C-alpha cells in the first residue's frame, strides 16, 4: 500500500465515491420535486458564483484593454468637441466645411521624471503617428508639457515641471492672463506671474489655458489660486494649486494645432518685416 499503487488506488476510490454520490443526487433530484428545486437551485447558485468570479478575473486582466478603449473614446470626443468649438457664434457665417483647429492623439507615458529641476516624459507615440516637435501634451486635468524631440515611435516631452518651461494661462473669472511656470520646488504648485493688480483674483478662483499660444487649446483647466502675492506694488504673482498630479501620470493626449504652420509663418513674416 505504499507509493504509486496506493496513490492510484486512493484516487480511484475518491473517483468512485464522487461518481456514486453524484449519481445518487441526480436520482434524488429526478424523483422529488422539492429536492430537485433545492438541488438545482444550489447548483445554479454555485454556477452563478463561479461565473461571477471568472468574470471578475477576466475583467481584471482586461483592464488595460478597457483603459485603452476609454482613452481612444476620449480622444474621439475631444476631436468632436474641438470641431464644435470651431463653430462661429453667428449662424450666418457658418462655413460649409468646419475644420477642426486641434487634433488629439492618445499616448501612454513610457518613462517620466518628476523629482528634478528639469523633468521630462517619454511617450509611446512618435513621428509615424503624426507627432511633431512643439506639440502640446495635455490631460483632462491640465497641461503636461511640450514635445521636444521625436523618433519614429516615441516622443521626448519637456514636462511642465521644468523651471525653463512656461505656458500662457488666464483667470477664468476675469480673463486676465499671464505666464504660468513651475518654481522647481513642489510638483503640485505653480506660479502665474505678472497678473494685473486690478484683476479681482481671489483664492479658489480657477485658472485655465489662455489659448494665446499655438500649442495648447484654450480653456483647459489647470488649477486654482491658493495664494496671492503682490510684487513691488505693480502686479500680482498667483500661487496655483495644480489639478494635474504629475506623480501619477499614465495616459496623455498630444494636441496638434492644425493651423500652427500658418500662424507661425505669419508671425515669422511679421517679425522679419519689423527687423527691416
Amino acid at each position, binding site marked *: 500500500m505504499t507509493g504509486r499503487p496506493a496513490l492510484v*488506488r486512493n484516487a*480511484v*476510490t475518491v473517483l*468512485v*465515491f464522487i461518481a*456514486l*454520490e453524484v*449519481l*445518487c*443526487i*441526480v*436520482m*434524488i433530484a*429526478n*424523483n*422529488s420535486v*422539492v*429536492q430537485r428545486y*433545492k*438541488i438545482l437551485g444550489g447548483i445554479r447558485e454555485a454556477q452563478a458564483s463561479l461565473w461571477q468570479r471568472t468574470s471578475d478575473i477576466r475583467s481584471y486582466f482586461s483592464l488595460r484593454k478597457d483603459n485603452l478603449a476609454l482613452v481612444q473614446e476620449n480622444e474621439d470626443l475631444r476631436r468632436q468637441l474641438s470641431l464644435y468649438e470651431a463653430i462661429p457664434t453667428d449662424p450666418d457665417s457658418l462655413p460649409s466645411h468646419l475644420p477642426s483647429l486641434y487634433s488629439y492623439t492618445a499616448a501612454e507615458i513610457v518613462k517620466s521624471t518628476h523629482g528634478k529641476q528639469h523633468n521630462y516624459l517619454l511617450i509611446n507615440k512618435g513621428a509615424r503617428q503624426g507627432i511633431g516637435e512643439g506639440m502640446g501634451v495635455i490631460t483632462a486635468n491640465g497641461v503636461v508639457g511640450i514635445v521636444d524631440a521625436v523618433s519614429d515611435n516615441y516622443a521626448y516631452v519637456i514636462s511642465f515641471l521644468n523651471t525653463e518651461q512656461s505656458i500662457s494661462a488666464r483667470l477664468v473669472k476675469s480673463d486676465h492672463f499671464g505666464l504660468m511656470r513651475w518654481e522647481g520646488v513642489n510638483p503640485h504648485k505653480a506660479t502665474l506671474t505678472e497678473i494685473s493688480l486690478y484683476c479681482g483674483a481671489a483664492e479658489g478662483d480657477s485658472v485655465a489655458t489662455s489659448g494665446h499660444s499655438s500649442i495648447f487649446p484654450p480653456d483647459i483647466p489647470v488649477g486654482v489660486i491658493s495664494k496671492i502675492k503682490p510684487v513691488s506694488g505693480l502686479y500680482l504673482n498667483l500661487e496655483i494649486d495644480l489639478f494635474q498630479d504629475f506623480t501619477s501620470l499614465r495616459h496623455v493626449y498630444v494636441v496638434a494645432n492644425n493651423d500652427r504652420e500658418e500662424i507661425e509663418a505669419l508671425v515669422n513674416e511679421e517679425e522679419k518685416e519689423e527687423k527691416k
Partner: protein
Amino acid sequence: MKDNWGRILFYVIILALQIVLSGYVNIGPYIYLCCLPLLVIYLPLDQETGVSMIIAFACGLIVDFLCDGIMGLNAAAAVALAAVRKPLYAACFSKDNLERAVIPTIQEAGVLRHINFILVSLAVYFIVYICLDSVGMESLTTTLLRFVLSCAANLVLILALDYSMFNSRR
C-alpha cells in the same frame, strides 16, 4: 464458500428487514428506522473501499426502490458510510483488527467501544440521509431532533441485531 453463502444470507435478511421496517413500521416523522448501516458496517474488511461503496450503493438502491422512498436517498447515505468505514474502524478499534480484517465482537471490543463505533457510523449515515432528505426545508431544531432521535433509535436496533445475529453465531 460456506462463509460467502452465510454472508449473502445476512445481506438478504438485512434487506428484507429493512423493507419490512420501511413499509410497515412507522413511529413518527422524527425517527427513521434503518438497519442498512449494519449491512455496510459488516461488509468484508479486506475488500477494497471502492467495491464496498458499489455494494452499499446497490443495496441502498434496492431499499429505495422497494420501499417506495426517494430513489438514491439511502444509496447516497450508504455510499458515504462505506467510504469512511475503514478509517472509523481504525479510529474506534485497534489497527490490528483492521490489518487482520477482523471485525471484533461486542465482547472482544468492549460494549462502550462498540456503541461508540456504531453511533459514529449512524451519525455519518444520518447526516447524509437527513441533509439530502430535508435539503434545508426544515428548521435546524427539527433537523437536529430528527438526527438525534434516529441515531438513538437505530443504535438500539442495530445493537440488538448485531448481538442476536453475530454474537450468538460466534
